[in-house]
């Protein structure tokens, strides 16, 4: 039976504010990293707030009623929280701002809630340390998503906090063990006997620290270990990745879907049948969300819209299947997609490969006109993308579905063709009549269109005139304010604000064209504005900020032609095309990344410098003492032990040990005898010790070692 720790002064064993601070910090780091990696800073800060409050609450509980039996039930309470979190995970997920923990990420949200609510019940060592479990799991998720570049740095900080907490808990356990061993009681008795009884347990702790724990590896070792670990990780991880490259990446995990806010800013929100325009500054970051391998820079359609209203665009009315009388024989029947492709007289086939890094996009953006069955998943058909009637593709991911790249073929108009005349409304099938509906064009916009197209002979010239007029009239500004309520956004854009971004330019182009009789539509998707390529150079890598909108006009023999009025528009400094807007989190910005890299390098360098200076100073400032001679003698004794095979007993004097070991020394005995007498003089005579003597003894010991070795080799 092992004796349990006796009741001793509380201040030595109890967990203090530092432990709670460490727990709070590491839990916050985990929750924050998770929130950011799923794309919701709001969620991240919400969890940080809850954890901070919970940790403070737990600290107060421990501080105020830490000695009450109720605190022993913290584990049970934590378990109950875990069960409740799991049971109500869906309701809890809805309470998070931006709702980033959609169905696929429900487990991540559950872990976040467990960490946050569990922090209210960390009343003792066990639960304080248990917080590490959901934290590590969350960091694992963050790593799997791989969307938060600062995550490794935060993980290092997490590890330092966790290690410090473990070290403190271990120290508490050691103190308890010291108490149980009876040592502290003995110290107390000794103090009492000597009349220096100290009422404070801390004094006895100091006695242990100055006694049997004096030579313990201290904070400098911990610091050196931490630096070594950081260095190993910084250098080792990339090296490891390179070594494992041939087998790495066998499984693909989709990154977390975009939050509703982000999806809305890109493609019109969760309801892709409508999109609002003129919504003011949007959060568009540098995160790459899609890569596309194709022959040249092309506009990638994600969704098309035909019906305009003051609130934005809606998809063309799919129910209008009957075409105007007389038009049926003139145009092929069928959907928009078939008609769009059939209009191209001279087709050029292209192939492409689209990789959706972020499935939150919701669609598979495609270039040109993709024929039916023209888009498949690489590695086999799984029907993860459903074709819409306008030839775009809706992503249909189930739980656990891993997103493969999509490969496809499409047709585009052959090069060097200049459109001239637009397809007239009566030549359009019923499903495309919305594209020619002039009634939706505000009167002032129509007047503007008519005005700027005066003198234009062909539809194409009219379209170009409209484009140029818009480019002249309006400034491109990603930070343009939102359109006021009850005001038509395009009218406001053209005649009042004269600034906006792609959605207003595209809407204005489409409406003006429609006003002068050119069928048009509003299209959202991506365009490699910045022209960035992937690491292997094979594909264009498009970020959130390259989500785009443009107008498309329907011309005879050519089909849909892109009219992007943003191309020639002047840009407001800081709000130019493809630029990440201010909504990019600070941790994603280049200055932060540079600063982080610099800080890590500076910390590592400073640590090395400090360690070097500390070592140099300690070596230089030390005055040799008899203890040093003792250490040298220990080396000498160790050598004698190796040579003679006899261990020195603690009770033996140097002379006694030498006589006991002399027989095994052979011809080295005279030198050993001489050296032993010098050691005895240095150790026990009143002679002062200097570094010269110490060096002399050290050299003589080495000489003995060399002599013994050479004789051993000779034999």
């Amino acid at each position, binding site marked *: *039976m*092992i*004796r349990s720790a006796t009741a001793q002064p509380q201040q030595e064993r109890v967990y203090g504010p530092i432990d709670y601070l460490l727990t709070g910090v590491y839990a916050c780091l985990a929750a924050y990293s998770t929130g950011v990696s799923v794309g919701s800073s709001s969620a991240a800060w919400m969890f940080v707030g809850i954890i901070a409050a919970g940790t403070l609450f737990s600290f107060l509980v421990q501080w105020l009623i830490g000695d009450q039996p109720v605190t022993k039930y913290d584990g049970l309470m934590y378990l109950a929280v875990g069960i409740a979190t799991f049971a109500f995970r869906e309701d809890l997920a809805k309470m998070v701002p931006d709702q980033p923990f959609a169905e696929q990420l429900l487990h991540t949200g559950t872990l976040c809630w467990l960490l946050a609510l569990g922090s209210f019940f960390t009343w003792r*060592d*066990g639960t304080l*340390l248990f917080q*590490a*479990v959901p934290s*590590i799991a969350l*960091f*694992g998720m*963050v*790593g*799997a998503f*791989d969307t938060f570049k600062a*995550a*490794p740095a935060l*993980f*290092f900080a997490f*590890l330092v906090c966790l*290690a410090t907490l*473990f070290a403190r*808990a*271990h120290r508490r*356990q*050691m103190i308890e*063990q*010291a108490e*149980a*061993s*009876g040592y502290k009681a*003995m110290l107390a008795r000794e103090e009492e006997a000597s009349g220096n009884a100290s009422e404070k347990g801390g004094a006895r702790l100091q006695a242990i620290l100055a006694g*049997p*724990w*004096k*030579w*313990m*590896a*201290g904070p400098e070792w911990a610091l050196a*270990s931490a630096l*070594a*670990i*950081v260095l*190993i990780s910084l250098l*080792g*991880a990339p090296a*490891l*990745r390179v070594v494992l*490259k041939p*087998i*790495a*990446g*066998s*499984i693909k*995990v989709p990154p977390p879907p975009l939050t509703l806010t982000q999806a809305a800013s890109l493609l019109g929100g969760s309801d892709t049948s409508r999109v609002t325009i003129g919504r003011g500054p949007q959060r568009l970051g540098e995160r790459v969300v899609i890569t596309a391998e194709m022959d040249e820079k092309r506009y990638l359609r994600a969704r098309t819209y035909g019906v305009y209203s003051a609130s934005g665009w809606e998809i063309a009315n799919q129910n209008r299947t009957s075409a105007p009388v007389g038009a049926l024989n003139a145009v092929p029947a069928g959907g928009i997609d078939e008609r769009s492709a059939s209009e191209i007289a001279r087709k050029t086939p292209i192939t492409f490969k689209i990789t959706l890094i972020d499935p939150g996009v919701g669609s598979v953006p495609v270039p040109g006109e993709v024929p039916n069955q023209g888009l498949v998943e690489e590695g086999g058909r799984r029907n993860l993308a459903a074709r819409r009637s306008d030839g775009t593709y809706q992503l249909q991911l189930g739980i656990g579905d891993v997103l493969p790249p999509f490969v496809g073929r499409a047709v585009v108009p052959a090069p060097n063709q200049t459109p001239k005349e637009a397809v007239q409304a009566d030549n359009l099938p019923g499903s495309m009549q919305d594209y020619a509906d002039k009634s939706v064009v505000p009167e002032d916009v129509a007047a503007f269109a008519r005005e700027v197209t005066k003198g234009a002979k062909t539809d194409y010239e009219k379209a170009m005139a409209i484009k140029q007029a818009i480019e002249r009239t309006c400034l491109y500004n990603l930070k343009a304010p939102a359109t006021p309520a009850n005001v038509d956004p395009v009218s406001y854009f053209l005649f009042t604000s004269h600034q906006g971004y792609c959605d207003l330019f595209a809407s204005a182009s489409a409406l003006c064209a429609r006003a002068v009789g050119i069928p048009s539509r509003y299209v959202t998707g991506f365009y490699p504005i910045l022209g960035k390529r992937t690491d292997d150079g094979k594909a264009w890598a498009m970020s959130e900020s390259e989500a785009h909108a443009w107008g498309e006009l329907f011309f005879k023999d050519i089909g849909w032609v892109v009219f992007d009025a943003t191309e020639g528009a002047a840009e407001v400094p800081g709000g130019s095309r493809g630029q990440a807007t201010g909504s990019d989190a600070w941790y994603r910005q280049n200055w932060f990344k540079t600063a982080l890299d610099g800080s890590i390098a500076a910390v590592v360098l400073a640590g090395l410098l400090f360690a070097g200076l500390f070592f140099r100073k300690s070596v230089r400032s030390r005055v040799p003492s008899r*203890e040093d001679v*003792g250490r040298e*003698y*220990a080396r000498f004794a160790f050598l004698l032990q190796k040579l003679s095979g006899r261990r020195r007993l*603690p009770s033996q004097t140097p002379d006694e040990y030498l006589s006991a070991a002399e027989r095994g020394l052979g011809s080295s005995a005279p030198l050993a005898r001489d050296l032993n007498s010098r050691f005895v003089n240095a150790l026990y005579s009143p002679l002062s010790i200097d570094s010269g003597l110490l060096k002399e003894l050290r050299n003589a010991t080495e000489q003995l070692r060399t002599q013994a070795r050479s004789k051993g080799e000779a034999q």
Partner: protein
Amino acid sequence: MRRVAGFALSLASLFLVLVAIMLDSQTLFYMGTALVATLLACRAQAWLAVRGLRFERVAPEAVRVGELVTVEVTVWSEHKIRRPLVAVIDSLPLKLQMVDRSPSLPVAPAYDLPVRTQYQFRALRRGKFRWSGLNVIGTDALGLITMKKHYTTSPAEMTVFPRPIPISIDIPMAAGWGISEAESGNSRGAGIEPRGIREYTSGDSLRHVHWRSSARSRKLQVKEFEAGSHAVAAFLLQRTRGTDIGLGPETSLDLMCGHAAYLSDMFLRQGVGVQFPGLEMGGYRGSAGERLSEIDELLASVEADTDDNMGTHLLRAKMDLPPGSTIFTFAVVADPSLVPAIAEVTHAGIQVIAMVYDAALFHMPGKKMPVLSAGSADFVSQLENVGAKSVMMPVEGTSA
């Protein structure tokens, strides 16, 4: 709990690295490497902590059952490295039954400097014990990884004396001048040669108070005289193989030793010579304190390991005892040889007091009592019929 944490972290690191490889995730590579590096550093620290140490152990030579024993272990480091704390688990012999064993004081060994650690326990069973070797338990500074290493040490020896178990018995009055008088105090001072000074006990004559010593010590002290060769108490314990009944630290022989130790102390304090025939060979001189130490040492090593029956022992004892002596026989198992032997001994003028135990009262879980108890009415009446005075000994309250 933290050992579990260490295991959990090891699993987590392995998982992170595996997932990092499978997903080819840069972030996971950093995380996994950092966690693995941390655990490797912990493992290296714990490994180094238990290497290159030297030990010297100091255990008390003798303690009494139930006393707190403190064993000190001095540690030296043979390498010039700083280490985390290490603890020592001494390889105490299995026979040494104990309670309240404390963990050892964690210490940080220093290079060629002695650092002292200690642990404590309470021995529960008398005996002579010898052991060597110990295990060192080293953990890293975070307490996540534990390493153990065995070291051989010079052997340590310790004797655990029996705990005197007080008994209140009426020793039957004997004819002539013997123990009964000693017990009543009548014999004290009957000798001529003064033997020393001792503390006053109830029954001492005020005639023998040594006033000078009493004044100095502020306690009544009396002069003690040799009581004379007639007053001898001999103790004969049942040591025949298979007669030690009971388990653990509370067997019949342990109880007999405890009672014998108490009675020895009592008689010696009253000036009566005490002998253990069969266990020692004559020459019982020296002060009461010295004799008591001899008896403790003797009782510590008594084992039920002889093939002779108790009757044989009693007859041998008769040869060494002067007439008028009293012999106390301690028996738990009914030994038929004892009956004729007592008859012969009492015939020689030696009083026999049979201290009998009820074998059924000793704890033998799951085992049927294989012997006839000495405390059975038949056996006791047989003993009394041949002249022995029987005393039924209590078994309760033997716990240390």
